[in-house]
């Protein structure tokens, strides 16, 4: 078991580095010069200053040397200094990550809370109106473009009905709490600042609904399909024939076996939420990693791009690893070689 985990971790590390290498190579084929975009107008017009800037940021070194420097720095935990914000990338990420983590987690929890029961009921009462309603809701959630859904929800629930507060993590007038973790809900609860807690929670409602919409559809569909599969098995018939309560049959017998694909997909969905919330963050003015990723990509900010790629790749392979490991917990039949 330990050997398996270790070997998977090693593979994961290799995967992450390969990902950064590929991105590095692609980013270097960009014909533009990121130095020019990062400097002011007058400085950028002076070739001497441009050369100096490029030398300071190591942009003129041969490619393999730049990558080698990057590897060395990563080994020491230093992700480099962002060209466009002039700060260490680690600082930038620490600044922006909690917002995304908070949003993604809440959205994921929401989609689980709604999607799992919906999928189970849809499977149990197959072809009834509940099933159809659940499938419809799931499909609409999966089919709606996130950026459009965000716009619509904002326009209706903030613009017209004034039920929800506006974009941003807090109201303009609110005092942000002392930063402990960066996650507003935890920070405010820690010090007992319930006013700000409610404000932060209210601001989380709309964006997490938007984000949860597509994951909800996925989870409902997967749960329903897995439950259908499980319910058609013989052991369920036996359980029913034994006279067990329907509820017990579903939750105690069919559900644990149906959870496997749901866990897989759920893990991947969470990783997706963490790394791909650009549209939602843009429309809701959420200062998160998605927007940072987008801006770094636009500015061809090498250190930031590679750091983000490394982190995203690491998140994905780690989630994969965790999911695979959880198989052993959930399904004793799975044998790890």
């Amino acid at each position, binding site marked *: 078991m330990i050997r398996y985990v270790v070997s998977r971790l090693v593979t994961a590390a290799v995967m992450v580095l390969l990902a950064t290498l590929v991105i590095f190579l692609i980013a270097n084929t960009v014909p533009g010069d990121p130095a020019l975009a990062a400097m002011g107008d007058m400085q950028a017009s002076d070739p001497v200053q441009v050369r100096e800037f490029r030398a300071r940021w190591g942009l003129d070194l041969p490619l393999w040397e730049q990558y080698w420097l990057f590897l060395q720095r990563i080994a020491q935990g230093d992700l480099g200094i962002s060209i466009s914000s002039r700060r260490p990338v680690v600082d930038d990420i620490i600044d922006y990550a909690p917002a995304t983590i908070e949003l993604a987690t809440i959205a994921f929890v929401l989609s689980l809370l709604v999607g799992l029961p919906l999928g189970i009921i849809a499977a149990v009462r197959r072809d009834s109106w509940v099933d159809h309603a659940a499938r419809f809701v799931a499909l609409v959630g999966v089919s709606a473009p996130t950026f459009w859904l965000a716009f619509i929800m904002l326009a209706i629930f903030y613009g017209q009905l004034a039920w929800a507060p506006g*974009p941003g993590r807090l109201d303009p007038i609110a005092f942000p709490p002392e930063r402990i973790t960066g996650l507003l809900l935890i920070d405010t609860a820690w010090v007992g600042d319930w006013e700000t807690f409610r404000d932060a929670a209210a601001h989380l409602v709309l964006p997490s609904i938007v984000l949860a919409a597509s994951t909800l559809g996925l989870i409902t569909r997967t749960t329903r399909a897995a439950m259908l599969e499980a319910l058609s098995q013989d052991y369920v018939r036996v359980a029913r024939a034994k006279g067990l309560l*329907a509820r017990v049959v579903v939750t105690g017998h069919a559900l644990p076996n149906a959870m496997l694909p749901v866990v897989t997909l759920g893990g991947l969905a969470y990783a997706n939420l963490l790394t791909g919330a650009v549209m939602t963050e843009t429309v809701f003015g959420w200062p998160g990693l998605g927007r940072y990723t987008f801006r770094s990509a636009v500015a061809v900010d090498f250190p930031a791009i590679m750091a983000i790629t490394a982190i995203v790749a690491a998140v994905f392979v780690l989630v994969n690893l965790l999911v695979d490991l959880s198989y052993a917990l959930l399904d004793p039949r799975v044998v790890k070689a």
Partner: protein
Amino acid sequence: MADQDKPGFGRRPLIAGTAGLLGSILTGARPADAQSAARRGALVIGLDISDALSLDPVRVYQYSNPLPTRAAYDGLVTFDAGDNINVKPALATEWAYQPDGKTIRFKLRPGVKFASGNPVTAEDVRFSFARHLNIKDQPFQYISHVESVAVVDENTVDIVLKDPTLPVISIIATPAFGIQEKALVVANGGTDAADAKEKDKATEWLNNNSAGAGPYRLTGWQRNQQIQMVRNPHYWRGTPGYERVLIRHMSESAAQLLAIQRGDLDVAFNLIPEQIATLRNDPNIQVMGTPSLDFIYMAVTEAPTNPALQNKLARQAIGYAIDFDGIIKNLAGGAAVRPVSFLPVGTNGSTSALTKEIGFNEDLPRARKLLADAGLPNGFKFQLAYGNAAIAGVTYQNLAQKIQADLARVGIIAELAPMDQVNLRTIFMGGKSEAVLTFWNPPAPENWLWSSATVNRVSKRVQWNVPPEMHKLVADAGAERDLVKAAALYRKYQEAMVDFAHHIVLIQPVYQVAVRKSVVGLNLTAAGWMADLSGAKPA
């Protein structure tokens, strides 16, 4: 089926529970009541501050950070709102060129205190400028012709220039050259020594605190979230009207619109013309127009790849085929003016009337005639590049498509090439573009900054071989201290620019800023820092 399964999950209780939770969260956190005292004592400004890299005056040169910098740091001189020609005293009461021509002597205002309570001295002034001169970041480029700054006595400072013909007084009105408190900056790692470029470590501290004499003091900056400032009780013009100033980052103009309508914001800077129209009927909000000195222009290059563009007449034809009035009236909602060329309306020598007289105007027959004279009766093709951005609510994308449609009327085909900033800057700076839509915003309202830019660095970008007469014209106009004579010289300069047709200026926006009527005394300005917060107070 005969079986009726009852899984036993209350689906209804679950839905009811979730809805109840949502409802309690949402109702419990209404936006703060606009009447509460804390809310009234704070000025909340909505602005897109995502481009701010630093709040250290030595490094301030973006679009959004001059506003908080001006609020925190007062400079030697300033411009009054609405007047971009006459420099007014601020921390310096009078100034004069010395007999040697290279030195300007400034007399400082007595009795001015920093936010910390310490008095402003000549040493602080010298330190601030020396720090600029030695750290050599972007703002330094504008005063690179300053040789040194020297203390004469307690209340007098000399600025010594390398070249006496180059202007400097209007340039140091920029917030970046605000006076910093030497003791505070040095205590936090700052230095003005010759090796300040490597040794100065105060920027990190100055990003979250200020050391100036302005009406407000910086207390915090969360990037892409907000900038917080508190009142400076020692301010020399009198106690500022608000206890706190919050600059909230909102990049979406729709969000700013809704926020100001609900009272979450007092001032919204980034609204677009369509949204402004809806605010005109709102009794709580007034829309203030502030003429700016920024403009959007199309740079047309004598590209080696495009023989048509090398012909001056062909370039002029482009200028005469564009429906400028339609652009301003419809795309910019009428909230814009248009200068002749690279000198914005409102500076010395540039007016809207002049544009009608000697500038580009829509004249299709003339454009066709120019094309015929250029030997291109059927028009020609060129590539128009631009980035993904919007100025005053006009996106480059819409502008480019409108231009494309306009030019097609005379047979000129513009192929649109949207690009990201990096590629755009690279091809533009490298002179490899054919035509680019871009934006110019001045660091300070000094004519010479524009004119010299066009014949120096910008000319390289458009592959313009600037004839020596132009260089002389620009230098003469810059050195001329008499305003009327300078205006005449600048008229000649602008006529030449139209003739060469490398820069076609499209829109000089009149920024529409929405301000709630509960705020009075907010003076908007075009001089580069958007608004003067010193006079703002609750109604």
